């Protein structure tokens, strides 16, 4: 692990227990600024638990999670309420099963995501009276929403109900919505789950573009190795709540511990070949 001051997210000795089970056990890793990091591991390895700790849904009893926002003191995520992590540290997540505002239109979903900025800029009185400050805030919100509709190819569906979209579009909308909240760190929970080959290809492009154009760092939990291997700079492998490998994709792919965790094989070139094919 390279310990540079540029790390955006530093997780140290994070532990989360449910009864006697340590779902996440003494986990430490870093995500550098402008990096796409992937968190992989077999089912039940603790990936989603880790996500829930990062975004404030669980309060881990042990460990430290620091987010360096560039200037000033780092945010200590383990001490912040969930909505503050999203609002102030701007760690924004998506969910394994898209959690959209199904009864609202696609555009409204994207506008709600900008709630904090819009509410602050427009103000209560100016909002009720429709004064210029409010109108300007609304226009900015709509422009950003339009930008992300365009990027995710959902422009044509802007006024449709979010819940009426097909599954693949809902996943894209969730990413667009997260981006509208202007994240420093975007946490994606299995963004490619249920997508076909072409859709996951365009997801790859989208993630790389997000990183390139907006400098947003991305942490993703993923099972789809084609996504993980192609987009990530850095792969962290969890098994039974413990980090078993951490490094560049190519290194992790050939790590015997990883192969064992995935295939349960003690040894054997067959297993290595199987992983190579899967990747």
């Amino acid at each position, binding site marked *: 692990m390279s310990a540079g001051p540029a790390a955006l997210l530093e997780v140290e000795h994070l532990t989360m227990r449910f009864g006697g089970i340590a779902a996440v056990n003494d986990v430490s890793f870093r995500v550098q600024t402008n990096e796409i990091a992937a968190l992989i591991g077999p089912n039940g390895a603790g990936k989603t638990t880790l996500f829930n700790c990062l975004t404030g849904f669980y309060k881990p009893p042990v460990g430290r999670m620091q987010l360096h926002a560039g200037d000033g003191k780092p945010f200590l995520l383990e001490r912040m309420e969930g909505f503050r992590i999203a609002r102030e540290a701007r760690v924004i997540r998506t969910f394994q099963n898209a959690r959209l*505002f199904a009864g609202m239109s696609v555009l409204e979903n994207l506008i709600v995501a900008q709630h904090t900025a819009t509410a602050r800029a427009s103000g*209560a009185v100016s909002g009720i009276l429709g004064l210029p400050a409010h109108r300007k805030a609304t226009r900015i919100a709509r422009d950003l929403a339009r*930008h992300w509709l365009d990027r995710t190819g959902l422009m044509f569906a802007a006024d449709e109900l979010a819940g009426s979209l097909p599954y693949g579009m809902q996943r894209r909308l969730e990413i667009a919505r997260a981006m509208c909240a202007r994240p420093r760190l975007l946490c994606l929970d299995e963004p490619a789950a249920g997508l076909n080959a072409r859709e996951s290809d365009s997801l790859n492009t989208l993630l790389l573009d997000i990183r390139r154009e907006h400098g947003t760092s991305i942490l993703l939990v993923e099972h789809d190795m084609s996504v993980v291997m192609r987009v990530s700079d850095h792969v962290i492998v969890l098994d039974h709540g413990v980090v078993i490998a951490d490094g560049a994709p190519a290194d992790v792919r050939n790590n015997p511990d990883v192969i064992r965790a995935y295939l349960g094989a003690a040894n054997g070139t067959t297993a290595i070949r199987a992983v190579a094919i899967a990747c």
Partner: protein
Amino acid sequence: MWRLRVLAAFHELRDCAALRDAGRAGGIAAVLAFPILGFRLADSPQGLRLETRFSWVVFAAAAVFIARLMHHGLHRLPGLAFARAPGFANIAARARFSEPSTYAALIVFAVLLPWLPFTGRNTVDRATLILIYVMLGTGLNIVVGLAGLLDLGYVAFYAVGAYSYALLWQNFGLSFWECLPLAGALAAGFGLALGFPVLRLRGDYLAIVTLGFGEIVHVILLNWTPVTGGPNGIAGIPRPTFFGLPFAPSAPEGGKTFADYFGIAFSPLHRIYFLYYLILAMALIGAALVWRLRRLPLGRAWEALREDEIACQSLGLNPTIIKLSAFALGAMFAGFAGAFFAARQGFISPESFTFIESAIILSIVVLGGMGSQLGLTLAAILLVGLPEWFRDLAEYRMLAFGAAMVLVMQWRPKGLAQRRAPTVRLGNAPAPAPAQAMAEAP
């Protein structure tokens, strides 16, 4: 072609399934009607006597059988089939329930109502009552329709508003106009008081706690006799004045009445019309405020909370503030309505603030279609107006009420306004070019 289809429809009536189903419905009706309609206690010189009237049971069962059979037949008529197509429902909803012209027409009608040739004192009185419920529905709509928090104790805030005015007048001699904002503020305060303990609850559990809250307020009003007057209530509450000018046949000393001031003959109608316009103005301001709020970050946050609380949190929305603001603002509307109610009746007692009121207000919101202002206005007219207009039916008017409710739910299962129009649309401007958007985006 059309005639053929009608014929075919009635041919299908021979279909045994329809007959069997109608028979079953008739059978159920007979079983239900047997104890309800079949027996009757009657007064006679020898004391109470049990009368039987089994012919009624037969009639009821036959009526249900025929109605059910017609229901089957009608389903297959081309016109109705068309009305049931989802596309048509959308068109109808768009045409009738989203157009500003409908709002304009309703408002113009409401303003002109007292001057229409067929309206008398009674009609204006009933319209005033309906508007009180529109006001209450508007407030509850914030809590239930927009924020999605099921509140079964809403009547508590209505009571708080009414008793605020009554008690502030009784103890401090404050006038209606001074009490109106205070009643709203006090009710909002009670809304917050209810909001805090229920922040973590949702769904059924929230409903039970709010139900309990409504009962607590009712029981306090009933038993805290030294302050609230207990079951006797508070009487002699002064009527609202026209900005200081009372509506009375003779002026108090050194003052002028409304009629004197404008140089017109006194008529008791003045006050009734004034009350009507007052509540109309209050309801319109309330509706306008909600319309505006829905287009603001706060209003959208309410709706987002209804859709998914966890997603709200993950986007940086503070659920505590959103819930409390919904409870407080919703309660404030009930507070205003309560103060108006006290001023209109001149007498209030815990009788007026029972659970059934909460149920009626909730029905208005649900029947109107969750979140729709126009829908709840129509529902208030239907639910509060119909039983009033069917008073001639005496004890059977609740039957008409129930029948109307069943019909509406058949016709529009999601409420009168089924389609929610988005609160924001993309402007007509073309999408910004990628390069430009990149430069603008942070």
